[in-house]
Structures are given as structure tokens and as C-alpha cells.
């Protein structure tokens, strides 16, 4: 009888241990994630030679550049004096004139593409602390040249 009890206890303990291990493993799996893509902050605006430069008054706010050797992926944020519609209209024309194919244009966004890259412009007309009228975000991507 004593032997039977010990067997049951041992079996229960083994089951519990196994269950805990499985749970821990599952937990570990759900928490597991890859390292984030490395991003370098830009302290100053980076001029993009194939992108028309906005002609209105603009204040550089921040920028970042992805550094994963899959091309130049640059995001920059500006504050501008003009409203959303005016800025979007300007970029739609300027990008088209600069050789970009306008893929989509909405009331707040413009996206253009070329064979080796894309450009996306988002204009948010939101209250800004510096009393500029709109926030302009430009997402630029250029694929690396084939080696």
C-alpha cells in the first residue's frame, strides 16, 4: 500500500513538473522576439537628391534612418506653415514633376514610386506647440543597387 502511494505521489510530481515546464516553455515562446531593427536618429535634416524640397517655411523636428543594409529607409518630420490640403497638393505636383509615379493620393497623404524606391508623404494638420500649422512626415526608401 505504501509503495502504491509513493508511486502516485511521484507520478503527480512528475506530471506537475512537466506541466510547469510546458507552461514555462509556452510563456517563453510568447515572449520571445527578435531584436528590433537598428535605427539611427538624425540630428539634422538629410537632403534627398531625388525628392523635391518643400518651398514653404519648414522646421525640422526629427528624423531616423534604418540601418539594415536593405536600402536607404529615411523618415523625417517637419513642421510647416501651410495646411494639409495645400501641402498635399504641392507634393503631388512636385513629385510627379520629379519623375515619381503617384500611386495613391488622399486628402492627407501622397505616395509615389519608382523602380528602385518609394516615397510617402503624410500631412497632419494638428495643434502644434510652435504654432506651425501642420506636421509633415516624409518616408523615403531607396533599394540598394544590385551588386
Amino acid at each position, binding site marked *: 500500500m505504501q509503495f502504491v502511494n509513493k508511486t502516485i505521489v511521484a507520478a503527480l510530481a512528475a506530471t506537475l513538473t512537466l506541466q510547469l515546464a510546458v507552461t514555462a516553455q509556452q510563456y517563453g515562446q510568447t515572449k520571445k522576439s527578435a531584436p*528590433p531593427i537598428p535605427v539611427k536618429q538624425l540630428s539634422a535634416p538629410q537632403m534627398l537628391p531625388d525628392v523635391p524640397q518643400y518651398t514653404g517655411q519648414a522646421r525640422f523636428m526629427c528624423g531616423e534612418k534604418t540601418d539594415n543594409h536593405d536600402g536607404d529607409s529615411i523618415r523625417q518630420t517637419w513642421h510647416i506653415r501651410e495646411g494639409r490640403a495645400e501641402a498635399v497638393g504641392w507634393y503631388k505636383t512636385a513629385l510627379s514633376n520629379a519623375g515619381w509615379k503617384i500611386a495613391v493620393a488622399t486628402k492627407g497623404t501622397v505616395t509615389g514610386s519608382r523602380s528602385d524606391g518609394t516615397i510617402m508623404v503624410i500631412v497632419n494638420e*494638428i495643434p502644434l506647440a510652435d504654432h506651425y500649422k501642420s506636421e509633415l512626415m516624409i518616408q523615403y526608401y531607396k*533599394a540598394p543597387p544590385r551588386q
Partner: protein
Amino acid sequence: MTPRRRKGATLGLVAVCVLVLVVIGTAVYFLVKILGGGREIANATDAGALNVAKHIIRDARVDTLTPFQDCEYPLGCNYINLLTYNRCVAKAIMIAGNAANMTGPGDYKAHANEVVDKLEAMGKGLAQKIKDSNLYFNDVNNSVHMASLIGIKNTVPCNVAYMKASGPTNIFFSGQQLLNGVTIPISTTSLGPKNQNTYVAAGTGQGYMAGYAPISVMGRTIYGVPVFPQQNPHLVSGFDFNSSAKTFGSAPPNAVELGSQTTEMKTNMLTGAIACAIVGAVENGTPGSGGSNVGKSLLGSGFQFPAASSFGYLEFGNFPANQTPPGYDPKDYGDNIFNNELMEAGFNAFGDNSATQNSDYVTFSTNLIAPALWIDYAKGVKSDQAKQIADNMKKSPPDTSDPTIMAPPTGIPGITYAGAYNADLKSKPISSSNPPDQATIDILARMNQSKPEFCYADLAFEGGLMGACVAALPAIQSTYSHKVPYLNQGGAQLFSQADWAKATLLTEFEGRNARNLDRNGVPTYNNSATVNLTSGAPSSGLGLYPASLVPGQVPSTPPNMPTPDNPLPLQSPGSIKKLIQAVQSPGCATDTIAAIANRCKQIQPQTTDADVDRLLDTTLSMSAPNSPKWDNAHKMYIYLPGGDLSAPLIISESPPPKLTGTAPDGCCSYPNTNNACYTNTYFLDGSIVDSTNDQKVHMRPYLEIDSGNPLRCIDHADWQPGSGADNNFGRMTFSEIGLGQSTFTHIN
């Protein structure tokens, strides 16, 4: 003729003389008796009048009318007498002064007028009680044995007079209790208030308020009564008494005239005397000997009092919090797939189905050109292999060996993956240095080359992933070990409206959209979110943003406040003073705090500005989520425990002794839209809601903000003053009203 005898003549003369002396002596005796009895009557009358003057200051009483309960001495005695009448005068002056300085709609002037009316009613009642106090005349031993064995009596009410105009009452103000336009006449008596700095804040005390001197407040004229603190009651001349018949409003008299009479027992004629006496507030007994256990160490026998409304109180309430949005999780979501590989503008995918969203096999890369190049290569390989096999089959015997694989192209950039739509492909990266094996070439060759899908562009401009990107999403997550955001159990924090709006957006960002299903019918991410503050959650209470970001009043466009660097709730519990300063401009906040301090000093004149600062430094958090109204607010009160003037003011959640539960009578009830000082509006889009780097994401959780009706909060620190007519001297209400609706699109 008989000669005269000379013997016996002297005897007669002696007898006559004796007789004359007896008659004269008797006459002198009665004369002395008559004159001495008059003096005796006069003295006894003086004593009786003095006794009346002594008694009327304490024992002529009227019932206490509301709100003068805190003018009683001892507290709870339910009567007002000459000693305490001036306390009522002082309280009425403060209430009327408050009302005179208040503006806007409200019943404060009507209430203050009612208080003055009640003061006057008590004054008239007291005057009648004083007239009827002649009973105290007969209390003394009025025996006058020389004039009459039956003693003297008084049977008619006292005559009264209003003597010594501008003489000292037994009240003094602190100069900091008085508001604009209220001037208290000061008596020029040589005796100033005794130990004044123990009653009021050091250096702020005034002299004794002058009695029978007009005090004009709010169009009413109020008079105190000279009761001469630190002096004994004493006799006054009939001439002075009779020239002091002029009354002063409804103020009771302070002097009495009593006459006595008796029947002179010799002449059987009525005789008597008249005496006049004035009251005096004698400092007698020991502290507390006024019969009260309250204020033992301060008010003593009650011969003098500071002006105070010791049952007054101030209310502070912070409205209930908003609920935490279900599922909100404050943790870092920077590792999600949208913030990593799908943030790459070059990300593109291919599928093997003509309807690419239903593809079983997919190819994808963060590099814009790599997948297409590898698919080209694979299709070329397959074509060559087919040709090889056909050629080999023509051989005799046929060559059944595996076809060769052409050399992979060089210079294809980046890493590409190809495999089942839901497989973890991280162990099979394709690159120039790690070309695909035959199985992978087979998969690559199956891709629908005519339908490339640009995943980032889909997210940014198409309302979400499309085509091959939809099919590949499970494999993308597994391969890169970055998931779409996901919810956990959420929390139970106390949220303001601004916090609720921010958390709602983040919950959408981390949530699943039932209308956006994957191929297995499982809800996936929300590529857009709408936050409606107008109807989404009720108004909330108020807290403080991190002091390092918002040190004072919240600016109309607040600084960026990303989580989890600034964990939610952004608004943490704050002190009353800081909450006021977070809403009101510096000038307004100074005025409001000064108004509160003035009220505090009316309740407890010992209070200093530093004391008020300490009281207002108390934290007042929001109450638990509930409907937004005062009844549900987290409330605290400033008051004197038990109305005890020897104690300092406290701030407590326990209600004060005379709490009415009704709002103060000043302008205006919550929400106050009459005074721009008490509200502050600021905008949320892009700074508090959808902040830059929120949850550690690059840029924002959602890139595009459509805020035709921008999200904004109107914070209230509404100061509603009270005249104090019902002891409520003011209420401060803290709340936050959210308005607007913004739509956020393009998950990042």
C-alpha cells in the same frame, strides 16, 4: 403787697429748657432718621442697579438663531447674550462683506440679508430681555432699616440707554479677514485686546471694534455694542444716562436705570431713589470658566473674542475617474512586427495563388527588389531543369539523374524567405551567399510574379495589408519573431479623460479587429482607430501630468508624452494647490488661493498664509469610476474640529460639524462657464494621444491623424465662493471634460 420770692424761678427755666431740648432732640432724631434713610435707599438702589448691570451681560439671553451657533459661548448653550452678541455682529459683517464682494448669479446677497435680519431680530430680543432684567434688582438684600423696615423694591422694567458710542466692544478682527469695502471702526480705548497674538495670526490683529458706530456693508448698517472688556460694570450719572437715549439700529442697550421705592415709616409717605449703571465685560475666573470645555486655553471667561466663523468650512472635490479601457496594457510594444520589418518601406511579398491573399506558399523580403530577382532565378532554373529532363529522356537509355541547378546569381541584395504561408522560415534565409535549395526553388518558381505586394505601402495607403502580404503575415511574424500587438488582461488604473483617450488608441493599436480576419477567421490588427471623447467616456476627475513635462498650467499644445516612458495614467494624483495651478493661469491661481486663504482666516483667525499652503498641499485624487457629479467626487473639507478656536484648521475627508450638503451660494454651480479663469483647454492629437514614439514604436502608433474635430480636454478648477450664510464658505471642483473625435490610420 406781697414781696416776690426769688426762690423757684430757675427751676422753671430749666424745665422749659429741658423741654425745648427734648423737642429739638426729638426733631433732630427724626430728621437724622429721615435723612439717613434716604441715603440708605440711594445706596441700596445703586447696589441693585449695579447688580442688574452685572447680570444683563450674561443672563439676558435670546435663543440662538442659525447660523450663529458658533457665536455661542460656551458652544452648545443655545443662547446669545450681550457678551456674545458682538460675535454675531462680527460674523454677520464677514458674511455680508463676502456677499458684497461676490459677483455673478447666486443667492448670496439674499442669504446675507437674511443673516443681518436675524442679527437684528436677536438684538431686539436682547433689548427686551435687558429691559425685563429688573428682577436682578430685587435679588440683592435691599433692607433699609432707617427708612423702612420693609426694604426697597423695584417693580417696573428697566429704563435703558445706549451709552458711550464708539466705546469698545469685546470683538476684534484680524486685518486679513476683511474684504474690499469693509472697514471696521476701532475703539480708541486705552485698553487693547489682551494677549491678542494668541487669538489671531501674529501682527494681524486690530483694536477692539467700536460699538454703536455704523458699519456699512452691502447696503446694510450694522452696529456692535460697547461692553467694555477688562472693565467692571459701574454707575453712571443720570444726566449722562438720560442723554443717551438714541438707539443704534437694532443693537441692544448697554446701560440700565432702575428706580426703587418704599414707604417711609414715620411719614408713611412713599420714598425711593434712582440709579443708572453700565455693563462691563469683566475678565474674571480662569480660562474655561465660562463653562465650556471648548477653547479652555483661549477664550477664558469669554470677556473678549476674535471675529470668527468657527463652524465654517470649505469643500474640495475631485470627480470620479474614467474606467480603464478594457484590455489596455501599458507595456512596451516596440517589438511588434509593424514597428520592425513591416515598417520597412521596401517590404514586399509574393504568393502562389492568382488570388494572392489565399496563397499557400509565399515569398517575402524587406528588400524591394530581392524577391523578384530570386523568383526570376527560380523560374529560370525550373525552365532549364525541364529542358534538361526532356533532353535526358530522349537519351537511350534515358538519363534519370536529377537535373542540375544553375549557378545562383550574384549580387542579389538582402535576405529573402520562401515557404508555406504559416511557416517559420528563419532557418532558411535566401541570399547570394546562401542560395535556395531545390525545394525552395520549387516554391519560388510557383510565385505569381505578376502580383507583387508592397506591404508597407498597403499599410500606409490601402487601409491595411493586401494580397500576398495578407497571406504571408503568419510566416512574416514567425520568421522575424515579431508579432502584431496583442492585448493582455488590462489594468484598473484611475484614468482621466486624456488618459482614457490615449489608452483607447493604444488598445486599438494592440487589439484585434473582428472585421479584419486572416484566412483562418482570426481577427487581426486594427489599421485604423477612432477615438471619440465627446461620447466615449463620461467626464472625469483631474490629475497632474509629469511635473518634468508640465510644471504648471497645461499648455494648449502639451509636450509629447509617449508611453511607457511616461506610464499611464499620465495624470497622477496631485495636491489641491498643484491641481489649481495646472488649470488656472498664475494670476488666476494666485487670486483663487488668496480667496481660499481669506475664507480660512474668517473661520480661524490664527491661520497664516503658510498654514493655508500646508492645507492645500494635501493630495486629492480622483474617486473610483462613477457618474460625474459632485455626490460621487472624492471630497475633502477644511474646517475647525468641533468649532474649537484654540485648534488649527484641518483638512479631512470627515465632514465638518455643520455640513449642509448643498452647494455654496456664490457664482457659479459646476460647470462654471462664467469665469474663464477656472478652465483650461488643451489639445491631445499627436502629443498625448498617438504620441511620437508611443509604446516605443517608431514615429507614431498610427501615422495619419484626421482631426477635423480635434481631441481636446477642458480642465476645470471651479472655485465657487460661498458667503458663509450657511457656514459653507466655498467649493472647489476639479474635473476634466473631453471633447472631439479623431481618426487615426496607417498602423506603424
